[in-house]
């Protein structure tokens, strides 16, 4: 007797259809799962056998073979428990085989027959929808993720017997109501708002320009200057995410198992802070079963690296490829996993190991020590930081002063206007932000007038600029001009862009 049911495996953050086929035939009694499966999938047979027993079904004394097809893609995770159990029951004729047609099932089983929370439900349902499936069965603890995909009926079950009753039609379960619109529409606030930051006007300006053109930014300043707070505020001045972006980001978090019932969608732009002891794998993702790293968790948001000279060189260099491509490719045996990693990098560092340079009355470092500190960041990495600004220590007087400061909303509006201008400019091109402009686009969109050209010539000879720096300044000046709403790049924009590159 042969039966099958559809389920899904996870590769990267994408799901692929897996047909769970079961056959029960006479022979030496046994339970085998085949189909290029990982350790946790092999263990499914013990969970399934016990869960079936504890739900009141005893396995026949026969040879049970389960195949997860296609057989040439590595499968991992615990989502196959429920479909395996269902297809076994279908073979045992507890469920009629036709009832399983057009059904997608995923979920981990506990020994008691309870269906537990499973990682990656969101991308699986999105895959099922694409595959034309009409009905999905998922664990009830993952109902949040199930409720944000539209045009597909998602049913939640909390135990194996409930699933059987549902499939056989003994029990009616109402499909989940779509919460996508309501979730997307919920007004939200960021925990950190620019209205909390007093003083720091240079850094605020830098952050605004960075957000407007999605430029990577490095903040240099003494300890206690508030670099981390500024970084945390940056997502709040970026435009709200579109539906597509929300789903993409949520898929990453689903694979990491980081979505909750209460917040099934990531609607705030992510802010991910990586510690300086992070390894390259924790940053870009990897592992025997590839998992998304910090760069993918920061997809469409901000990745913050504090104290970058303290990061291992290997870890920093590993960021270069995702910074360049916006995706991470991880190759494992025959598979290539792709994780999205389109993030804005915000880095912070002290000006010297003690943090007080250039105040020579307080700085205790000598030039060798400082040079060694600086040299920990490689030139190519520095090249990817479009903006490098100074964050200053704020005096207590400034913090207590009642001067009104702009809140994130006001800044966000200006940033969104700049984004609109860029969207129109790059319509029909593969890029959408100034920071992504290559040399060809720069030549096309950053034309300078005669006066500006002379200024740029003077500046480049004064600063002994390389061609790369020259282009970077043009790119930055384009964003500054977009923020100011001017069509051409003005002298002022160029002058400010040079300063934001702060000496590098």
């Amino acid at each position, binding site marked *: 007797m042969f039966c099958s049911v559809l389920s899904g495996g996870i590769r990267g953050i994408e799901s692929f259809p897996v047909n769970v086929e079961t056959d029960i035939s006479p022979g030496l009694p046994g339970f085998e799962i085949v189909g290029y499966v990982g350790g946790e999938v092999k263990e499914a047979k013990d969970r399934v056998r016990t869960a079936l027993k504890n739900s009141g079904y005893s396995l026949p004394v026969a040879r049970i073979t389960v195949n997860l097809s296609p057989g040439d893609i590595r499968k991992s995770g615990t989502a196959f428990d429920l479909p395996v159990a269902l297809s076994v029951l279908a073979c045992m004729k507890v469920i009629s085989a036709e009832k399983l047609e057009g059904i997608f099932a995923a979920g981990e089983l506990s020994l008691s027959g309870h269906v537990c929370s499973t990682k990656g439900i969101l991308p699986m349902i999105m895959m099922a929808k694409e595959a034309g499936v009409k009905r999905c069965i998922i664990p009830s603890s993952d109902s949040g993720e199930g409720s944000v995909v539209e045009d597909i009926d998602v049913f939640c079950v909390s135990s194996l017997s409930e699933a059987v009753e549902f499939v056989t039609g003994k029990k009616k379960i109402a499909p989940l109501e779509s919460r996508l619109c309501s979730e997307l529409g919920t007004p939200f606030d960021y925990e950190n708002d620019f209205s909390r930051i007093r003083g720091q006007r240079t850094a605020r*300006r830098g952050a605004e320009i960075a957000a407007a053109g999605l430029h990577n930014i490095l903040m240099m300043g003494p300890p206690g200057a508030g670099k981390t707070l500024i970084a945390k505020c940056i997502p709040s001045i970026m435009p709200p995410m579109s539906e597509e972006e929300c789903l993409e980001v949520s898929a990453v978090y689903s694979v990491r198992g980081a979505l909750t019932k209460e917040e099934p969608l990531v609607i705030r732009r992510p802010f991910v802070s990586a510690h300086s002891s992070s390894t390259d794998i924790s940053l870009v993702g990897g592992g025997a079963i590839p998992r998304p790293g910090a760069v993918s968790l920061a997809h469409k948001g901000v990745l913050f690296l504090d104290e970058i000279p303290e990061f291992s060189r290997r870890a920093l260099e590993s960021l270069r490829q995702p910074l360049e491509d916006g995706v991470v490719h991880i190759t494992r045996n025959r598979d290539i996993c792709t994780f999205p990693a389109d993030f804005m990098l915000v880095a912070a560092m002290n000006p010297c190991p003690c943090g007080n340079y250039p105040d020579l009355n307080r700085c205790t470092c000598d030039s060798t020590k400082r040079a060694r500190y600086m040299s920990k960041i490689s030139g190519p990495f520095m090249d990817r930081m479009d903006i490098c600004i100074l964050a200053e220590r704020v005096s207590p007087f400034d913090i207590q002063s009642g001067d009104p400061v702009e809140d994130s909303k006001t800044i966000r509006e200006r940033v969104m206007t700049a984004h609109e201008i860029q969207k129109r400019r790059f319509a029909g091109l593969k890029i959408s932000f100034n920071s992504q402009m290559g040399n060809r686009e720069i030549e096309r969109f950053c034309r300078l007038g005669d006066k500006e050209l002379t200024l740029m010539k003077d500046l480049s000879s004064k600063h002994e600029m390389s061609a790369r720096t020259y282009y970077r300044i043009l790119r930055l000046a384009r964003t500054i001009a977009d923020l100011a709403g001017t069509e051409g790049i003005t002298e002022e924009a160029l002058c400010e862009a040079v300063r934001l590159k702060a*000496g590098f």
Partner: protein
Amino acid sequence: MTDQRIYDYWAATLQDGYIGNIIQIVERAGGARVLYEMSRQEMTKRLGISEKLAAYIEDNRVPYECLEKEYARAGLAGISYVNHTDRDFPEKLKNIPSCPYGLFVKGRLPDPLKPSVALIGARECSEYGRLMAEYFGNRLAKEGVQIISGMAWGIDGWAQKAALDAGGRSFGVLGCGPDIVYPSANRSLYNRLCEDGNGIISEYAPQTPARPRGFPPRNRIISALCDVLVVVEARKKSGTLITVDMAIDQGRTVMVVPGRLTDDLSAGCLNLLYQGALVATGVDAVLEQLNIKRQMSISDIREYKTEKEPEDLLPAEFMRIEEVLTLDPQSIGQIASKAGVSESEAMIILTKLELQGISKEMFPGFFVKIIKKLLC
């Protein structure tokens, strides 16, 4: 090339690990060759030196063929060996208590007929210190004064660079072999000091690496080679003060560039002034100590500061920012709030002032004023 020279060269290499007077030991032994061939027991018995020193000398007894090769290799690298008995060995150096046995020289030795000034100071100098080092280096070099210093990072390097830029002569005394560039960041200065009548001087043999113990002894050579020692910036416990002590022992005139009471970098200088060092009020004061009449007519420092060149009239905000700038580094934020302009405006104006050579970014985000006129 005689055998004698090779043995002298060998005796000079002993300076690496022994700070005492090698000349005396060699004289007592009756020549470098005799010392080379002496056994350890003989050394302790006849020369009355300690076991330890005898062992050191024996350990450093390199085979003669190797010495010959080393000597030839130094010659090929443009390094000449000057023995203390040679005619061109600096007379000034012979008279100090611990005269080196010989010197390794790349380029030339200072001209004994010309006045020499040593300009020394802190490695981590301030913008003010840098300006003063450049001012003295530049102006003294233009008066034909030779600038002696340690080629170190900071005051030493700036003073020597300024002297070379002014077309003068400068000599670097190193605490490592004359073929080792230390600090390596000063490579371009090193290269310039090797040619055009300038020189690199060391009492250590070629290939001797830079180690902390090599530097204090070299200070006695700096102070010995100069007529006047000028200290630009020194902290309370600075290595520069060792040089000053040696200069005083050797009877050299010590002059100090004053700084502010609040600057840690001037604490050592002010202390020296309190103890009675002369104040270097300007190039004239130094020249007076050297008994030189100025060849060119140049004005005193104070005049430079007050005198204003007719400039293109700058817009009001530019003027305000220019007034705010000082020799102390200030951040863009500080400058903007003092001048009463926005950060963006300050960035724009600072860039334009930088193009006009009025301001300079000395560290990312920090600006200082440039006082050009001191150096023309």
